């Protein structure tokens, strides 16, 4: 049976829009890999440094933003210091803005509690460079202030002064973090990636090369449960469920019609 693609398109639009308007309130359960990220931040002492890297493009913002907000809220509520930058150009302005907004929620001060260092292309070189000297890779922050002058970065030399790296990614950048920062400098790495990339990183989870994994909007929703601050992730979960069911029904319909047409031909 051939359905015009546009009918499928309309079905999908409806199945996402309706649950957004009329909330159902399906329950959500926290998975182990998300809890592991939460724990690896939870166990840090006040004042330790977390490096948050915005390794994504503007297109995946709907998934990255809820995850970034949840993780940053956790960091700031724990009084951790946050050093941040972007390894993909489009993450730059986005990262700067998300970081500033969340920091303001918690009254954190720029330069003392958090910094944003801007963008570096050629991520291999940047990640490796951080293992030797942060000031060399980032002589200045995003605003052009020397990293030797900012109170927070003044104290940081390389990975030895960074307790955890969180890579927010929509591509294979975490692989570079693992291949270079983890393997070469024993840096602890947690990742928050779009759902599409999540399966890619399960092997690293079981080999303990990453300390945890937050996967997409669902992961964000789970993280929001853990820090007890419902946000964008939780709001989208109903729509997610309904859309999945509609797609599965379409697949079932496709198969039923396939087998029926096969029988008719016989």
């Amino acid at each position: 049976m051939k359905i015009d693609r546009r009918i499928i398109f309309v079905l999908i639009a409806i199945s996402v829009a309706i649950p957004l308007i009329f909330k159902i309130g399906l329950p959500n359960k926290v998975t182990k890999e998300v809890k592991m990220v939460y724990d690896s931040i939870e166990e840090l002492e006040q004042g330790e440094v977390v490096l948050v890297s915005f390794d994504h493009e503007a297109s995946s913002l709907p998934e990255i933003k809820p995850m970034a907000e949840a993780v940053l809220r956790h960091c700031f509520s724990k009084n951790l210091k946050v050093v941040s930058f972007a390894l993909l150009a489009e993450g730059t302005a986005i990262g700067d803005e998300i970081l500033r907004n969340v920091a303001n929620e918690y009254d954190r001060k720029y330069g003392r509690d958090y910094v944003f260092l801007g963008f570096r292309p050629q991520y291999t070189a940047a990640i490796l460079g951080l293992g030797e000297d942060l000031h060399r890779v980032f002589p200045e922050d995003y605003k052009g202030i020397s990293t030797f002058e900012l109170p927070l970065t003044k104290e940081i030399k390389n990975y030895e002064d960074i307790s955890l790296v969180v890579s927010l990614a929509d591509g294979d950048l975490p692989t570079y973090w693992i291949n270079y920062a983890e393997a070469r400098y024993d840096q602890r790495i947690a990742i928050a990636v779009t759902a599409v990339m999540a399966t890619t990183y399960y092997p690293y989870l079981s080999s303990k090369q990453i300390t945890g994994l937050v996967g997409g909007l669902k992961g964000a929703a789970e993280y929001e449960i853990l820090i007890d601050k419902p946000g964008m992730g939780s709001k989208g979960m109903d729509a997610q469920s309904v859309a999945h069911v509609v797609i599965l029904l379409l697949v079932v319909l496709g198969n039923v019609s396939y087998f029926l047409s096969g029988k008719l031909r016989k």
Partner: protein
Amino acid sequence: MLKPKKRIFILFLLLLFFFLLNSITPAFAQKNEVEELKQRWFDPEKANVLAGLVTCIVLIFFFIIYGKKKGKLFIREIAGLQAIDDAIGRATEMGKPILYSAGLGKMDRVATMASMNILGTVAEKVAEYNTPLIFPNYDPVVMAVAQEVVKESFTRAGHPEFYNPDNIFFVTQSQFGYVAAVDGIMVRQKPATNLFLGTFEAESLILAETGNSIGAIQIAGTDSTIQLSFFIVACDYTLIGEELFAASGYLTKDPMVLGSIKGQDFLKILIIILVLAGGILATFNSEFLTKLFP
């Protein structure tokens, strides 16, 4: 290839250069272990990686030399490759063009290099029948290389006059801008065959779905594991990861490349044996093998 003597000489020069650099840099204070380590010539913690490296180099080299000597090595057929031949034939019969895309990869990606090698063979076949080969590009460097490869292939096939550089063109460095352009080409020119070989990202599904809607035969191959799942669902044949690399060796028939593929096969056997041995030891609570790994 460079002569071995020359190679050692260059390496020596390079080392000398860096030593000179070193002598003019200010001395660092030597305080702790890290500083002490920085006086040494070898980092003992990396011994296991060195062992792995030596194993890889020895095996791959051995088979490269072996291949060079023997001239011809056996490589099994790869399903997607046979399909490429048929697909070219089909386009010729129908008098329709063939669309080629190397995806978003830059020239330093292994998949892009493999794609260029395959492009050479495809172009040679296409030249015999004078079937148009359209190749929109995402990266200007890849485009330049592709033009040279195709031109050379047409010459080798004895039809340099059929080569049209305007068919291999640069589109844009924006992912979705590129997709939109390729989609436009598909809808307007209706190619009989689409070849997607290289590094792909989210655009894979849009390309494959549009290609499907115009009824083209589609053969894909990529090293991006995620996109493989879309190609598998939406294309007729898919070269999975290493198959793409091997395919380029299979087509070029370069004994040195084939040799290195053999070398990889032996490494795979070694990996399987080691993993199973490690599993057996782990069953008896021995960490003898696992301890050796990083």
